[in-house]
C-alpha cells in the first residue's frame, strides 16, 4: 500500500486554556478528495491554518510525502511560506483573499512568483531584459491562461480582481492556488455563497483537478450536496475531536455524525 500524501497524527492545538483541536489524526491520499466537515467551531479551519503554517500545533505531527520524488516534509517544523513554496501545499481562504486591485491575470502570475524569481536571476538579470526571463514569463502567462480557461475567467483576465462577481472570485482563488502547482490543495469552504449552478460547476472543477492533475484535495465544506457528491473520504470533527472517518455512505449512516451534525435522517437526505 502506498504511503498517504498527508498524514496528520495526534494534532492538538491549544490557545491558552482553550483546546481548539484535540488529538486529531487522519490521512489524505493522492488523487482523492478528502472532506473535513463538522458544525461551526469544530476546529476545521484551525486544522487548515495549522497545515498551511499559520498556526503552530501544540502537539502532533503532520507529514507530507511527495510521491514523485519520495521527499518527506514535516509541516509542523516549517515556516508558513516554505510550506507553500517547498512542500507545495496550496490553500484558499474562507473569506476570499485575492489581490483586489491587481488584475485577474496578475493574481495568477503572482502565484508563480518563486519560479519567475529564479528565472529573472532574482530581478538583476530581468531588469536588463534577460531572454530567459521573458521565456519564463511567457510560460507563466500560458499556465495562467490554462487555468483561466478552466475557470471560465478568460474574458475578465485584464479586469481588477475586485470587480469579479462573488463566484468568479471563488474560482479565481482556486485557479491562483493551482498556479503554484501544488501536490495538496486545501479549500476552505469553496462553495460558500455560491448558487446551485455555480456549485455544480465547482464540483466539476474539483473533480477535474483531482482526475487530470492527480493531486490530493482537502476540503472544508458545509454544503452537503458538494461534500457527498465529490468526496472520496470524509473526516468529521466536533468540538475539536474527530468523531468519524470514512467513505461518504458510511458517514451518512454513522449515528454519532447524525447526532452531532447531519441531524435527523430525513433532513440529511
Amino acid at each position, binding site marked *: 500500500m502506498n504511503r498517504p500524501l498527508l498524514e496528520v497524527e495526534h494534532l492538538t492545538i491549544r490557545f491558552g486554556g482553550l483546546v481548539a483541536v484535540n488529538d486529531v489524526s487522519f490521512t489524505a491520499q493522492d488523487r482523492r478528495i478528502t472532506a473535513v466537515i463538522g458544525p461551526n467551531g469544530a476546529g476545521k479551519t484551525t486544522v487548515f491554518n495549522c497545515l*498551511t*503554517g*499559520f498556526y503552530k500545533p501544540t502537539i502532533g505531527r503532520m507529514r507530507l510525502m511527495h510521491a514523485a520524488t519520495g521527499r518527506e516534509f514535516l509541516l509542523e517544523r516549517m515556516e*508558513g*511560506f*516554505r510550506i*507553500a*513554496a*517547498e512542500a507545495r501545499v*496550496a*490553500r484558499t*481562504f474562507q473569506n476570499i*483573499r*485575492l*489581490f*483586489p*486591485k*491587481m*488584475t485577474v*491575470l*496578475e493574481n495568477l*502570475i*503572482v*502565484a508563480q*512568483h*518563486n519560479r*519567475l*524569481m529564479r528565472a*529573472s536571476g*532574482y*530581478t538583476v538579470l*530581468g*531588469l536588463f531584459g534577460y531572454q530567459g526571463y521573458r521565456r519564463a*514569463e*511567457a510560460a507563466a*502567462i*500560458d499556465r*495562467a*491562461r490554462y487555468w*483561466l480557461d478552466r475557470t471560465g475567467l*478568460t474574458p475578465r*483576465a*485584464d479586469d481588477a480582481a475586485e470587480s469579479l462577481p462573488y463566484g468568479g472570485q471563488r474560482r479565481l482563488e482556486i485557479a*491562483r*492556488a493551482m498556479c*503554484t502547482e501544488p501536490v495538496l490543495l486545501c479549500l476552505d469552504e469553496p462553495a460558500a455563497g455560491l448558487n446551485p449552478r455555480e456549485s455544480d460547476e465547482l464540483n466539476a472543477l474539483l473533480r477535474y483537478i483531482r482526475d487530470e492533475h492527480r493531486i490530493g484535495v482537502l476540503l472544508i465544506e458545509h454544503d452537503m450536496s458538494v461534500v457527498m457528491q465529490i468526496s472520496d473520504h470524509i473526516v468529521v470533527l466536533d468540538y475539536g475531536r474527530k468523531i468519524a472517518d470514512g467513505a461518504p455512505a458510511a458517514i451518512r449512516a454513522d449515528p454519532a455524525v447524525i447526532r452531532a451534525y447531519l441531524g435527523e435522517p430525513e433532513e440529511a437526505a
Partner: protein
Amino acid sequence: MTPDVRPLDYAAMAKEAGLTAFVVLMLAVVLVGLELRDVPGALALYTRVPDVVAACVIAFIGRIAVILLREGYRDAVMIGGGIASVILLIGLLPEVLFGTQTAVKIANRLMPFEAPVVRWCVFAAALILAARAAIGRRRLRVQDVNARVAAADRAGARMQHIARYAGPALGFAAVALPIVYGHDQQAMSVAILVMTYIMLGWGLNIVVGLAGLLDLGYVAFYAVGAYTFALLATTEGIEWSFWLCLPMAGALAGLVGVLLGFPVLRLRGDYLAIVTLGFGEIIRVVIQNWASFTKGPNGITGIPRPTLFGLSWEEEAPEGQTAFWQWFSNNLWPVEYSAAHEKIFLFYIILFLALIVNWFALRARKMPIGRAWEALREDEIACRSLGINPTNTKLTAFGCGAMFGGFAGAFFATSQGFVSPESFVFIESAIILAIVVLGGFGSQLGVVLAALLLIGLPEVFREVKDFRMLAFGLAMVAIMLWRPAGLLAHREPTVRLKTARAGAKP
C-alpha cells in the same frame, strides 16, 4: 436664462456667506491681522486691519458667487466674475509691467495685501469662477468620495495614456531647461531642489506606493547617504571623489535600510509608521550628538563639488586639476568662467540620478519582485499562502528605497557643500511622503506633478515669508478635497492577456 434656476433664499444665502466670512475672519485675525514685531527695546503689536477686512469681504463675495453657481445662475456669475477679473487685471497689471509708485499704490488700494502674489491669487479665483460658469453645462454638485475617486481614476487612466508622450516630453523639457534658464542661478537652484525631491519621491514611491510600507523616516537614509559622502570626502587621508563615494553612499544607506528593516518589518500599517518615524529621529539625534565623528550640530563644511572627468568647476582649479572653462577654452571654443556652469552640471547629475530611479521603478514593477511588492501591499496573508517570503520581499523594497535615498543624500551633500543635522528633520520625511501621497500612490508622473506643486509653490510664495507654508497647507487641503486618492491615481496592469496573446508561443 438657464432652465434649472432655483429661486434664491436670500436669508440662507447671507447666512452661508456670512459663516464663511466669519471663519475667514477668525483665521485671518490670528494668522494675518496680528503680528508681534521686535522694535528696539520692546515688542510691539502690529495690526493689519485692512488685510483682514479685505479677506472677509472677498470670502463673502466669493461664497455668494459659489452659491449662485450652485443654484444655476451661471450668467450672473460669469458676468460678475468676468468684470471682477477684468478690474483686477487692469488694477494689478501695471504694477508688474511698470512697477512705478503710482501703479503699486493703485494695486494696494484695490487689494490691501502686502504681497502681489496674494492679489494674483484672488484674480485667479475670480477668473476660475467665471470660467466655470461659462463652460459648466451642469450645476456645481456635491460628489461623494467614491464618485470622486472613480473620476480621479478615469482622469488618471487618461493621463497614463498621454504619459507615454508626456513622460519623454517632460524629460526633454528637463534636459532643455538649463539651456533656457542656465544663466539664472536662482532658477537653477530651485530646479535642482525640485529634482532632488522628485528623486526622493520616486525612491519613497517604491516603499510606500508599491510595497505599501508606510515609512515616515525616509529622511534617515537621505542623512546616511549625505553623511557617508561628507565624511569620506572630508576626512584627512581618505578624501575620495564624489563619483567614488556615490555608490558607497547608496550601498551604505541600503544596508542601514535592511538592518533597520529586519526588526521593524514584522509590524504593519500604523505601527510600522510610528517605528520608522522613531528611527528617522534616532538617526538624526545620533548624528547631532556623536560630535567626535560627525562634528555634531556644527555640521561638516567644505565638502568638495563633483568633477567632470577630473575637470574642476572652480575658476582657479586646485592643484593637479584643470578648470573646466580653461580646458573648454583651450580645446573647443573660448568660454568665460561662470558660476552657473557648476549649477547646470549639478542639475544634470540629479536629473540623471532621478531618471535611474524612475527607470528602476518602472522596470521593477513588471518583474516578479515588483508584482510581489504590490501583492504584499494588497494582502500579506495571501502572499504567504502562495510561497512568497514576506520578510525578504519587504526588505528588498525597503533596501531599494533606502539606497536611492542614499544616492540623493550624497548628491545633496555635494551640491550644498555643507551638511548638518538640521537638514534631516522630520518635516523633510513628511514632505517627501506628501509628494508620494498627493501624486497618487505608485504614479511616477504624479510624483513629478506633486513635487512641482509642493516644492515649487512655497518657492513662488517665498515673498509672503512666514505664510508660505500656509500655501503648502492649502494645496494639501485642496487636493484632499478634490482628489482624495492623489493627483494621478490609476493603476496600470503590469501585464495584459490581450497583448500577451499576440506575442506568446502556442
